[in-house]
C-alpha cells in the first residue's frame, strides 16, 4: 500500500506539466476556470481538443490501434489531475468516452473507419440522445419511434436534456424499434448526423441563464440503417456497456482545483465558513483516495457497479457542497445575475452553484443510485 508516484510517474507528470505550461494559453485557462457548466462551450473546447489531438493526447484511453496512448492507470490519473489543476477547459465525454468505446466494441469496420478518426481529431462533435420528456432516470421507458422503411429508419418523437446538441454535428441515440416485448427489449442504438431534414434543435435555458441543454425534435427523420450499432432491438446491451464504460469518470480532480481556489480566497472569512471549508476539504481527501481505489483495486463486476454508484453520489454531493461554499464566500456579491462567466468571468460562483444543482439529477438521479446500492447490498 503506497500513495506515492514512482520516479517514472513523476517524470510523466513533468512531461504533462511542461505540455500544459506551453500549450494551455491564458485564454484556455480562463475559459476552463470560469466554466460554470459541465463542459466548456465551442469553439474554445474544440480548439483545446485540437491542441490535445496534435500532441496525441485527445483519446488517451482508447486502444493503441485506434490512437490511444497505452498509459497506465497512474498516468491517466496524473493526466486528469494536471489538467484540472491547470484549469484546462473541461471537455464533453460524449464523443471520446461514450460513443467511441461503443463503436470500438460493437461497430463494424466501416463504422470504425468512418467515425473514430473524426472523433480523435476533433472534427466531429457528438450529442447524446438518451432522455425523453417522459423518460428520465427510467431510461427503459423511452418511446422515440424508429420505423424501418427500406434502407432507412424513420424517426418520430423527441429527445430532451441534450447537452450541447447545438454545438454537435452527430448524435448517438436510443430509439424504439419494437414495442411488443419488455421495455428493455425493442430498443436500438443508432448513429446519425444532426443536419438531417426533420431534426429541430430547440434550446432549453437553465436556471443559471445558460444555454447548455436542448430538446431535439424528430419529424419523419430518415436515418440510414448504416448507422445502426449492434443488432436491431439490442440497444439495451449497448447502452449498458456504455454505462459500465462511463464508470471511469473521476470527480475529485476538478473538485480539488475548485476547492483550492476557494481556500486561497478564504483567509479571514467567517469562522463558521472556514470550518465548512475544512470539512469539505477533509471529505474530499477521502473521496480522492476512494477514486484512486476504484482506479487501482481489482474488482469484480458487482463491486465495480457498487463503487460506481457510491462515487456518483458522493462525488456529486461533494461537488454541490463545494460550489455552495463558493457562493457563501462570494457573500452578497453572489446575487448579481451571472453574465456568461466562461467569457467574462462574472458570476462564475453563482452560475456554477446553480448549474451544479443538476449534478444529483443527471446521469441517473442520486435517488436511483441509492436504490442501486441498496439492491446490490441486499441481494
Amino acid at each position: 500500500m503506497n500513495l506515492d508516484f514512482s520516479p517514472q510517474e513523476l517524470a510523466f507528470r513533468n512531461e504533462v506539466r511542461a505540455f500544459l505550461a506551453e500549450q494551455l494559453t491564458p485564454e484556455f485557462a480562463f475559459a476552463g476556470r470560469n466554466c460554470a457548466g459541465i463542459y466548456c462551450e465551442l469553439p474554445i473546447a474544440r480548439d483545446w481538443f485540437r491542441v490535445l489531438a496534435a500532441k496525441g493526447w485527445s483519446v488517451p484511453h482508447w486502444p493503441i490501434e485506434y490512437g490511444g496512448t497505452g498509459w497506465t492507470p497512474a498516468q491517466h490519473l496524473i493526466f486528469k489531475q494536471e489538467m484540472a489543476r491547470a484549469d484546462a477547459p473541461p471537455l464533453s465525454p460524449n464523443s471520446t468516452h461514450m460513443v467511441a468505446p461503443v463503436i470500438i466494441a460493437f461497430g463494424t469496420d466501416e463504422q470504425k473507419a468512418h467515425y473514430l478518426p473524426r472523433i480523435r481529431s476533433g472534427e466531429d462533435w457528438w450529442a447524446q440522445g438518451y432522455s425523453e420528456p417522459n423518460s428520465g432516470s427510467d431510461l427503459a421507458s423511452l418511446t422515440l419511434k424508429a420505423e424501418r422503411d427500406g434502407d432507412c429508419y424513420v424517426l418520430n418523437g423527441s429527445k430532451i436534456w441534450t447537452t450541447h446538441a447545438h454545438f454537435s454535428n452527430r448524435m448517438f441515440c436510443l430509439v424504439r424499434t419494437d414495442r411488443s416485448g419488455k421495455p428493455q427489449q425493442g430498443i436500438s442504438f443508432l448513429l446519425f448526423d444532426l443536419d438531417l431534414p426533420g431534426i429541430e434543435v430547440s434550446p432549453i435555458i437553465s436556471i443559471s441563464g445558460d444555454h447548455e441543454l436542448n430538446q431535439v425534435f424528430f419529424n419523419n427523420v430518415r436515418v440510414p440503417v448504416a448507422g445502426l450499432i449492434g443488432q436491431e432491438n439490442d440497444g439495451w446491451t449497448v447502452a449498458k456497456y456504455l454505462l459500465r464504460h462511463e464508470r471511469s469518470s473521476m470527480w475529485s480532480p476538478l473538485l480539488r482545483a475548485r476547492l483550492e481556489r476557494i481556500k486561497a480566497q478564504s483567509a479571514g472569512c467567517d469562522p463558521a465558513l472556514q470550518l465548512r471549508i475544512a470539512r469539505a476539504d477533509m471529505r474530499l481527501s477521502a473521496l480522492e483516495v476512494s477514486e484512486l481505489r476504484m482506479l487501482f483495486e481489482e474488482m469484480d463486476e458487482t463491486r465495480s457497479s457498487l463503487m460506481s454508484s457510491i462515487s456518483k453520489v458522493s462525488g456529486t454531493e461533494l461537488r454541490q457542497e463545494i460550489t455552495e461554499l463558493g457562493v457563501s464566500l462570494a457573500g452578497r456579491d453572489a446575487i448579481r445575475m451571472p453574465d456568461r462567466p466562461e467569457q467574462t468571468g462574472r458570476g462564475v460562483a453563482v452560475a456554477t452553484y446553480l448549474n451544479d444543482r443538476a449534478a444529483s439529477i443527471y446521469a441517473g438521479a442520486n435517488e436511483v443510485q441509492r436504490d442501486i446500492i441498496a439492491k446490490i447490498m441486499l441481494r
Partner: protein
Amino acid sequence: MDFTFTEEQQMLRASLRRFLADRYPFDQRLAASRSANGLPSGVWAALANELGLLSVGLPEDHGGLGGGAVDHMIIMEELGRVVALEPYLETIVIGAELLSRCGGTTAQGVLAGVVSGEILLASAFAEAGTELDLSHIATRAERKGEGWRLSGRKTLVTGAPWASQLLIAARTSGASGDASGISLFLVDPALPGITLDCCATIDGRRAADIAFDDVHLAAEALLGEEGKALPLLDEVTDRAIAALCAEAVGAMGHLLEATVAYTSDRKQFGRDLASFQVVRHRMADMLIEIELATSAVYMSTVRLDGPAQVRKLAASAAKAVVCAAARFVGQSAVQLHGAMGMTDELDIGHYFKRLMVISAAFGDADAHCARYLSLSVDKG
C-alpha cells in the same frame, strides 16, 4: 399570549392573495422581470390605490393604518408566494418606516408620495462586510455651509434603479466603529456626483452600485438627529430581516405545493413519483422546515417592538432558521422536479434564486449564527 390574526389582518391576507392570484400570473412576472424597467406595469399603483396596501402597516400619525410588523409580515408572505418583484420591502418596510420614525417636514412630504404609490424608495446602510455592524461603514458626509457633502460607495443597493429617492447612511463624525456619528440622508439619485451602475440580480430584480462623489446635499437632506441614526438603522435592519423571512416562508410554501403537485402527476418507473417513500419523506421534511421557519418568523416579528437585545436575538434566530429551511426546501424542490426543476421555464428555479437572494441579504446564516452566539454570551 395570542396567536390569532385580527379580522382586519385576515381580510388583508385574503384580499391580497386574491389580487395576486388574478393579477400576478407567473408568465407576466417573468416577462416583466426581463423588460427594460423590470416591473409589471400597473401593479404597484393598484396595490397603492385599489388595495390601499401601502399604508396598512404604517403608523397612523403618518397617514398609515397603524398595522405594524404583523401586517408587514402578512403582506411579505403573500408577495413571497408569487415571488413578486415589487419593492415593498425597500419602499415600505425599510423606507417608509425610516421616514416615519425620523419625522420632519421632508419626511412627511415623501411619505405622502410613498403611500399614494408615486414614490419608490431604496436604502443603503451597509457596505461590503458591514451588514450586521453598521458602525464600520466608510461612506462619509461632511458639513459644508448649510448643507452636506457626501462621498462613498454603496454596492448592490436593491431597488435603487426604480427609486426616486434614496435613503443613505453615512458617517458624519467620529471614527469607524464608533456607535455615534452615523447619520441618515434623503438623497435624490439625480443629483450631480451620483453614479448608478445598474444590474439585474439573480431573482430578476434590479440593483445598483452607487458612487457618491462629493455630492452636495441641502440641509434638509438630513433625516432625524445628526449622528444618532445607528440604533434606528439597527432596528430597521431587524425589521427588514423579519419581513424577508416572512417572504421566504411564502416562497417556500409555494415550492412545497408545486412539488407535491408535480410529484403527484409525474410518472417514473410506472408509478407516481409521489408514491416513492424517499420522495414522500423529503416532502415531509420540507413541511417540517417550513413550519419551524414560520414559527421563527412569528417570533422575530413579535419581538420587533421589544428591547434591542431580545429583538436582535429573535431576528438572528429567524434568519438562521429560515436560511437553513430555504436551503433545504429550495434544493429539495429542484431535486424532486428533476431536470425540469433546472429549467428557466418553470417557476421553481426563480423561487429558488429569490430564496438565495433573501439568504444573502442582511447577513447570511453563518453571520447570524455568530451574532446570536455573541449576543447570547453578552446576555449570559
